[in-house]
């Protein structure tokens, strides 16, 4: 039966990293996945910077770190939604702190609920997310004009609402993905599937891309093929953050990044680790095979 006629083959969504720039034009609203020092889509971030992208609005994971800080340092960001932007045990995110204090980026003062409920509203294309009494006890409404109030038609109570957050494109890092975009993220706090639903386009960078069945229990596939627009294979693509099951976070490199940025030398860091390496492999070569192997999970 198989040889009787030529059926068209299902299309692969794999693209080379260099084509990412077409998906993230200047001025886009970009969602970024990951949690703290885990699964940040760093290879994608470096490529966006290499492309000279500017004017981005960033809606990151509620626990954002080096990915956002690097984009701010490179001058790629005009507006940033803030729930948490920091380097956890390594202190403040230095480029974010500087830009916020100098007023060179616009900040939308949010919090964890802002990002989560906002994206959930975006995911269902809901008009907004009405909240129980919560924001009333804080100063967030005084600096975030997007926290608007309305009347709950069921109770007559005035409630704060979070608007739908809908990125144009979402950058997500995963452990394994097939060529059609079925994505497995082995990490924690699986919020990426909600971010994907809220985003017009989804780009997945994966440690491994397989041509053929994932061989996984389909229940572990976090993001399904129809949600994903393009797939990029980048081994060690989360470095210097961790890829759960593959490699730990590179604390030395994070520290180096933080120290150079704090000292005002982000441009030096950028020249050495983002602009000079012409592609992802060259970046990994600058980190060195010895270090990469040391970081592997045991």
């Amino acid at each position, binding site marked *: 039966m198989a040889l009787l006629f030529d059926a068209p083959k299902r299309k692969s969504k794999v693209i080379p990293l260099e084509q990412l720039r077409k998906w993230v034009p200047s001025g886009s609203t970009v969602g970024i996945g990951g*949690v*703290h*020092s*885990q699964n940040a889509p760093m290879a994608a971030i470096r490529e966006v910077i290499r492309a000279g992208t500017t004017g981005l609005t960033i809606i990151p994971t*509620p*626990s954002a770190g080096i990915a956002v800080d690097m984009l701010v340092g490179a001058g790629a960001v005009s507006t940033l939604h*803030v*729930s*948490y*932007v*920091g380097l*956890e*045990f390594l202190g*403040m*995110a230095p480029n*974010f*702190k500087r830009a*916020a*204090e100098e007023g060179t980026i616009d900040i939308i*003062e*949010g*919090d*964890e*609920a*802002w990002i*989560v*409920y906002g994206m*959930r509203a975006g995911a269902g294309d809901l008009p907004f997310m009405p*909240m*129980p*009494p*919560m*924001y*009333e*006890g*804080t*100063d*967030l409404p005084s*600096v975030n004009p997007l926290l608007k109030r309305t009347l709950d038609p069921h109770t007559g109570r005035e409630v704060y609402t979070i608007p739908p957050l809908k990125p144009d494109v979402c950058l997500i890092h995963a452990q394994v993905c097939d060529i059609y975009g079925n994505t497995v993220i082995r*990490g*924690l*706090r*699986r*919020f990426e599937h*909600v971010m994907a639903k809220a985003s017009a386009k989804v780009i997945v960078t994966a440690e491994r891309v397989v041509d053929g069945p994932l061989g996984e229990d389909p229940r572990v596939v976090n993001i399904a093929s129809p949600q994903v627009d393009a797939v990029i294979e980048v081994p060690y693509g989360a470095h210097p953050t*961790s890829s*759960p*099951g593959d490699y730990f*976070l590179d604390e030395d490199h994070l520290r180096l990044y933080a120290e150079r940025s704090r000292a005002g030398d982000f441009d030096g860091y950028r020249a050495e680790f983002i602009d000079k390496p012409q592609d992802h492999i060259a970046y990994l070569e600058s980190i060195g095979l010895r270090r990469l192997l040391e970081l592997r999970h045991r």
Partner: protein
Amino acid sequence: MAVVLSRSFVDGEFGAIGAASQIPYAALRLAILTRAPNICWLSGGSGGINPVVNELPASSSDYRNALTAEAIYSLEDVVDWETSSRLDFACLGGMQIDQYGNTNMARLKTSDGRFVRGPGTVGLVFMSTFKKVYLYTERHTERTLVEKVDFISGAGHLSGGDSRFRHLMRRATGPVLLVTPMAVFDFPAPERRARLVSVHPMHTVDEVLANMSFVPRIDGDVPVTPPPTDIELAVLREVVDPRGVLRRPR
């Protein structure tokens, strides 16, 4: 600090701690191992319920928290639980904590009017909805313990008394304790202003007061914080924190 927090937890409750929170992590494990086995807790960004890493991971997103947990929860789960007041308690801190237990992690002003950016409000917003909050800070300083936060990220007792309940639900009672490396405070009725409850061994009341920007309520003589028992010390040193992370200079 871990021991004081540990003794405050109530058996059977369901609570959460935040990122970079080694002291509450140790406190919870200590409580569960010594007297409160029915506590269930979430370790911040890790996504795991009741993790058992005998090493106090530096990052809350350490994968071992997930590997050793009983169950994994998603970010949506924790935000739903926090918003709906399903969590009985949380252990939280802030760049600034004021005399009514309000917290700030977003933005502050220095004495010469400079604007200083913090990492952001993140989960402090849920101080409006947790049933109760244990506040802690590793920095007992004038810059941290202030009369009034520059910006309310997390609602404590707002302007004191019952002011919190003008807008927020009564089931979310607010901060009940504040633990620092020098002292323990509570927030008694009716004013809900921080009251100095005890001073840790090797510290004095004068030292405590000299390093704060407000004068707490003090009722008579201030006792010494009861030191760890032999059992608490043994469990901490041998099981919960064998590498001595809590004893390193911080």
